[in-house]
């Protein structure tokens, strides 16, 4: 019988994971997905575990997804959002977390605007830390669910050509996806306006392009990203309309490409900017599969980390 021990104690980023870890997570998630299709969608695996959702940034999908994942595993769950807490009164991150931990919490799921916040906590507090997005750094569960969705569709990621299109510079989804896709053997090309493609990114083993048509002709899969206005401090784009004209994925653009392209989008979608409604809701879109797989992946991550014997 194969054991399924991960090589890590926390999920801080995809960079720290080994390929075998990703495979274990996928194998476990595939079984949790079947649990989600039953009439009783709950298993008692983590009934002794308490999970806190610590969100210092807004989120819909990730937060609800982690909440549902914890509940499907029978764990106790506390939701914490910075906007309604004592963080507003000046409490530091470490103090906030230590106070919550004093109430006996086993797992901390954290989203924070500062890159490295989960890493910082993991060295200072005795709980399992799961990174649910730290600034423009990593968003590991999103990359895992994107790759899991592709693996379920294509069988393997080896040799698959995946384009990540949009605001690469400000995107933690892009960085985590680059790590995950390259580890699993996919070819990755980044595409976007020159202002939103960070220099030297090719050192991560990817190619870059400023040409949308070229990229679409090349790829099997397009992972379309949102323009992150909230993180942009400079003027990176003349206008959203211009961005849409050059980089928006529309039925007209896809018609010029001879082969079908599978569409991923991590959400939230800005319809009419990076992608049109017809494409987002079209037959080649896996956007809603991603959401369902997100719950299964987060169940697997919670289960595998919390079930590690201490």
């Amino acid at each position, binding site marked *: 019988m194969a*054991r399924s021990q991960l090589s890590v104690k926390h999920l801080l980023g995809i960079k720290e994971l080994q390929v075998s870890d990703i495979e274990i997570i996928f194998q476990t998630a595939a079984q949790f997905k079947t649990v989600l299709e*039953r009439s009783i969608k709950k298993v008692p695996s983590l009934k002794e575990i308490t999970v806190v959702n610590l969100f210092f940034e807004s989120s819909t999908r990730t937060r609800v997804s982690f909440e549902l994942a914890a509940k499907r595993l029978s764990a106790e769950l506390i939701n914490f959002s910075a906007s309604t807490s004592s963080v507003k009164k000046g409490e530091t991150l470490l103090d906030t977390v230590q106070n919550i931990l004093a109430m006996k919490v086993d797992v901390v799921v954290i989203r924070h605007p500062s890159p490295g916040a989960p890493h910082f906590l993991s060295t200072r507090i005795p709980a399992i830390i799961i990174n649910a997005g730290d600034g423009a750094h990593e968003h590991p569960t999103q990359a895992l669910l994107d790759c899991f969705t592709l693996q379920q569709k294509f069988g393997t990621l080896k040799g698959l050509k995946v384009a990540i299109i949009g605001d690469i510079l400000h995107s933690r989804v892009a960085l985590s996806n680059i790590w995950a896709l390259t580890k699993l053997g996919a070819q990755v090309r980044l595409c976007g306006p020159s202002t939103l493609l960070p220099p030297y990114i090719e050192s991560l083993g990817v190619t870059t392009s400023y040409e949308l048509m070229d990229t679409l002709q090349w790829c099997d899969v397009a992972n379309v990203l949102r323009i992150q206005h909230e993180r942009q401090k400079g003027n990176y784009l003349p206008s959203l309309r211009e961005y849409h004209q050059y980089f928006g994925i529309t039925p007209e653009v896809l018609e010029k490409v001879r082969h079908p392209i599978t569409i991923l989008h991590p959400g939230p979608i800005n319809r009419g900017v990076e992608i049109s409604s017809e494409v987002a809701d079209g037959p080649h879109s896996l956007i809603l599969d991603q959401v369902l797989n997100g719950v299964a992946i987060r169940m697997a991550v919670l289960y595998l980390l919390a079930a590690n014997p201490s």
Partner: protein
Amino acid sequence: MPSRELFLPQQLSYTLLRLAEQLKEKHENFASSCIIGIQPRGIYLARRIHRLLLDENITLPYGELDVTFHRDDYKIRSPLLPNATKIDFLITDKRVILVDDVLYTGRTVRAALDAILSFGRPALVELLVLVDRKRKRDLPIMANYVGIEIDSLDSERVTVEWQEIHGKDSVRIETRSF
């Protein structure tokens, strides 16, 4: 590692036939019965028994159940990789025959009972095992159909291998090396 076969050649197939006969005795026409193998090792025995019944034109639904997520020992040892659960029929009001290769502490069966209930409310659940390591139970669980009963020590281990995956049928007890 010193080991000893629990069945003589041919004896295992007679035992499997006997188990199938005992099921026929209890389930008469198998109208509302189903057979479910417990992953990962119980499925081979379940498939054999299902096959033997099929050879006599007795058809009944067959499923496989993984109990990994229902185990209670994940804090003591690292978790097992989950296997596939495949039950594509309704459990409700069925007479369920759970099948596993070895019955030891009873904890796997406890988890299986828990898992089966998330598929519905069976009319009845029975347990069929090939090897019953009696007097080693942690829980009040016993099998309805038993291939062979043995006395064993905690330091011993019972290994069941099947022609289909291991190349030959073998049921042996061995002393664990530490």
